[in-house]
Structures are given as C-alpha cells and as structure tokens.
C-alpha cells in the first residue's frame, strides 16, 4: 500500500538526489533567502531555480513565505524527523540481516 507519507518520503529522497537542490538547502541553512538571491549564487536562470524550489517544496523540505513583493524560502526543520525515520529503518535492516545470518549459520552448524 502506498500511503501519503510513503509518497512524501520518496519525494524527499528524489529531491535530495540532485546536487543543485542540495546546494540550495545548504544556502538556506544559513537563513531564509528570496529566489533572486539564490539564482545569483548559482548563476542560473530564475526559472531553473524556481523549478528546483518547487521540487523541494513538494517534498516538504522548504516552505515559501510571502515577504513584500516576493517569496522568501525557508528550510523546514521537520525534515529532520524524516532523517530520524530513515535511520531507524537503516538500523532495523542491519539488525534483520544480523538475525538472519546468526540463525542461518546456527542451523547449518547443527546439521
């Protein structure tokens, strides 16, 4: 079953798979920034930056805040929750492998 949260997790990992988007997140870590400031940093067109920001926004990694005449982008702290979930899953996979290896080798030893 594909749940809403599964789709969102997939979107987060897809968003993080791109180097430009990771650089945008790194910049936003220093503080909120408007689109024009981000596009100056990257020397790419505003539409290109806007596309990346849309992907990040849909993944829940950033949110837009209206400030005067333009949007300012802010890093979402909630993504840390996702990292936590990801680490949990990572270690539970390792523990599952340990259990399978130990039980498998114990059975083999006895036969």
């Amino acid at each position: 079953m594909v749940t809403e949260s599964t789709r969102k997790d997939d979107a987060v990992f897809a968003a993080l798979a791109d180097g430009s988007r990771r650089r945008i997140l790194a910049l936003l870590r220093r503080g909120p920034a408007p689109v024009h400031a981000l596009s100056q940093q990257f020397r790419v067109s505003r539409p290109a930056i806007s596309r990346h920001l849309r992907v990040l926004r849909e993944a829940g990694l950033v949110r837009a805040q209206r400030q005067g005449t333009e949007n300012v982008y802010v890093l979402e702290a909630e993504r840390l929750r996702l990292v936590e979930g990801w680490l949990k899953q990572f270690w539970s996979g390792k523990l599952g492998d340990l259990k399978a290896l130990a039980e498998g080798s114990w059975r083999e030893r006895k036969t």
Partner: protein
Amino acid sequence: MSEKLDPIAHVIDVDVPLDHLWHVMTDAATVPQWLGCMNYEARLGHTFHMQPDGARRADGDIAGATHCDVTALAKPLFAFSWYMPGTPKTNVSFRLSAQGPRKTRVVFLHDGWDQFPAEMVRGIRDMLQGGWTSAVLPNLAKTASR
C-alpha cells in the same frame, strides 16, 4: 519543531545461543556480511568504515563513508562510534542478553545526536550525498521483504 534527533532504539530477539550471536556479531569474517562495512577488525580502538556507495565499496574507496571506531568489544557489549570526519561522534551499541538457552535479545541504541543541533544537518546531508539513497534504500527494501 525540535531541531534535535532522539536516540534511535531497537530491540530484536534472535533464536540462537548468546555465544553464537556474539561470534557472528563481532567476528571479522561475519561483520561485513550483516553490517555491510569495510576494513573491520575485531580490535578495540580500530577504525572501520561504512560505505553506502556500492561501487566505491567494491573499489575499497572510503570517500563519503561513515567512520566507526570500535569503543567496546567485551561480551555482551559491542559498541562503536559513528561519524563523518569533522563532525561530532555519535554512539552505536549492541547489548546482548540471554533470554533462554537458544534465545538472545539484542538491545540496539544509536545516540549522541544532542551534540549537534545545527551541525547535524550538515552531517546528515553529507551522508545522503554519499549515495545512501541510491545504494542503501533498495537493500533495505530487499531485506524487509525477505
């Protein structure tokens, strides 16, 4: 929303005697099989690496890998630090307890996240950049569906 991560904890029961599980969990021949790490040696203070990128792992390249120093290796406690160079060391531990002649409980803990509220973000991002998403997640899915 808190900027910190809570400790990661797991408890799992394994249907083998404690001594057997200890051997599989810590022996240099079997640790790479379940932990997927590189350069492991069963020696206190030894540093091994967890390389998420499968191609780099095959080449013995530790770029982007998480570093782990063995900090405890005395039955029933196996522990190592877990860090990216230049960031604080988090702690990973596996503590065994016999639940019967052929049943052993593993209590797993990954803590130390409180050391870096802001720095953590960078550490985690570096980790993700190393290819965890492309290499580890498919493995996880495979393990989970077995």
